[in-house]
């Protein structure tokens, strides 16, 4: 989707202003919101691609002005509704309750065998790899000049606006990985070959706007690219 999340190259967003240091969590709720991600993943509400699509469907003004873990909260709420774990009215009602009773405790843990902590202990070092091997042959190889297809799909895609229609050179080939344009839209998972394409700043922004001596790389799935015309 042509969403507000697609930020590469937008102007007018102000200073980065990195603080000298900051805590891991700016508020207690961030710690809890962070853990919603592996727990809702384990419960089958989403994979990482669909999780991102949930964030992309936030109200754009809210997206730009809210702390990042609120994006996560939004996506978990969205996918919990989509997968029938709760409905919005139920979440709203409990939200009102905890707003009025901020010190009300959470329910008691229901996990006598500690399976959820065991899941955390296992998934952090093991990860959830996106690489696949279905034996599909790669169409492109390192050194090929390719152009990113300039279409504007609805739904989830990683084909960022600022690389659409641009031509660059493949500098790495990574094999097959889960294809976000299917998995992210909660369709049956497919996989495609992934390549890193390198662009010059001039090719991306034009000679006048480009900074000197700059390049960018962007990872593409095979359906995102075609051989360059020249």
């Amino acid at each position, binding site marked *: 989707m042509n969403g507000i999340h697609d930020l590469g190259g937008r102007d007018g967003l102000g200073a*980065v202003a990195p603080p000298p240091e900051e805590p891991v969590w700016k508020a207690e709720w961030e710690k809890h919101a*962070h853990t919603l991600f592996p727990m809702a993943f384990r419960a089958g509400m989403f994979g*990482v691609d669909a999780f991102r699509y949930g964030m992309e469907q936030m109200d754009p003004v809210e997206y730009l*002005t809210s702390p990042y873990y609120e994006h996560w909260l939004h996506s978990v709420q969205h996918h919990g509704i989509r997968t029938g774990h709760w409905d919005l009215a139920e979440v709203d009602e409990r939200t009102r309750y*905890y707003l009025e009773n901020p010190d009300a405790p959470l*329910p008691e843990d229901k996990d006598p065998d500690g399976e*959820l*902590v065991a899941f955390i202990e296992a998934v952090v070092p093991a*990860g959830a790899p996106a690489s696949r091997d279905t034996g599909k042959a790669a169409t492109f190889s390192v050194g090929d000049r390719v152009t990113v297809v300039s279409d504007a799909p609805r739904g989830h895609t990683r084909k960022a606006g600022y690389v659409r229609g641009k031509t660059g050179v493949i500098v790495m080939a990574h094999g097959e990985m889960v294809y976000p344009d299917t998995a992210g839209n909660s369709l049956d998972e497919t996989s495609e070959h992934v390549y890193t394409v390198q662009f010059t700043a001039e090719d991306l922004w034009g000679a006048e706007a480009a900074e000197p001596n700059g390049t960018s790389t962007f990872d593409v799935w095979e359906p995102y690219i075609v051989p360059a015309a020249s």
Partner: protein
Amino acid sequence: MNAPNTAQSVPAADHQAQIAARVKAIESLMIEKGLMTTAAVDRFAEIYENEVGPQLGAKVVANAWTDPQFRERLLDNASTACAELGISGLQGEDMVAVENTDQVRHAIVCTLCSCYPWPVLGLPPNWYKEPAYRARMVREPRTVLRDEFGLDVPDSVEIRVWDTSSEMRYWVLPQRPAGTDGWSEEQLAALVTRESMIGVGDPEQP
């Protein structure tokens, strides 16, 4: 010059209270269904507070600076090289380390969300996830490095920005500071900053 960042994430107190209540609402639903526990929250938080952070990346970098064969393996396949040191996992299943040289400086960004190599750097700083860095780092990295991070890169040096659009996770192997001959791995690791592995800073000088 850029105006102050109005998108910086410091929402009003009532907004904080709203979000906190909604997180609690969803967490309570998940706890009742047996899908989440406060014990899991505590453990997951503890891992990223105390165990997985940039000190792990610093250890890898110091190893690469002192062991040329390890450096080769790291540049060939960062995931398997890091695994030799017991470093692996979530949001870094497939990592690539890119090496700064006198000719090229690398930096990472995720313009579409906030992808970041957790196993070596921990959780990303807030500025990395906020709109200004994500928007500007691909368009004017030289300006961002100079004005926001105090890093003046001469025009003769290429700046190469890695936009982390897939599940590959890139991070930067910075150059070893001069004047550190004979230093131990532990001494060298203490010079390696999180910013130097994101590519927006240099290691500390001895």
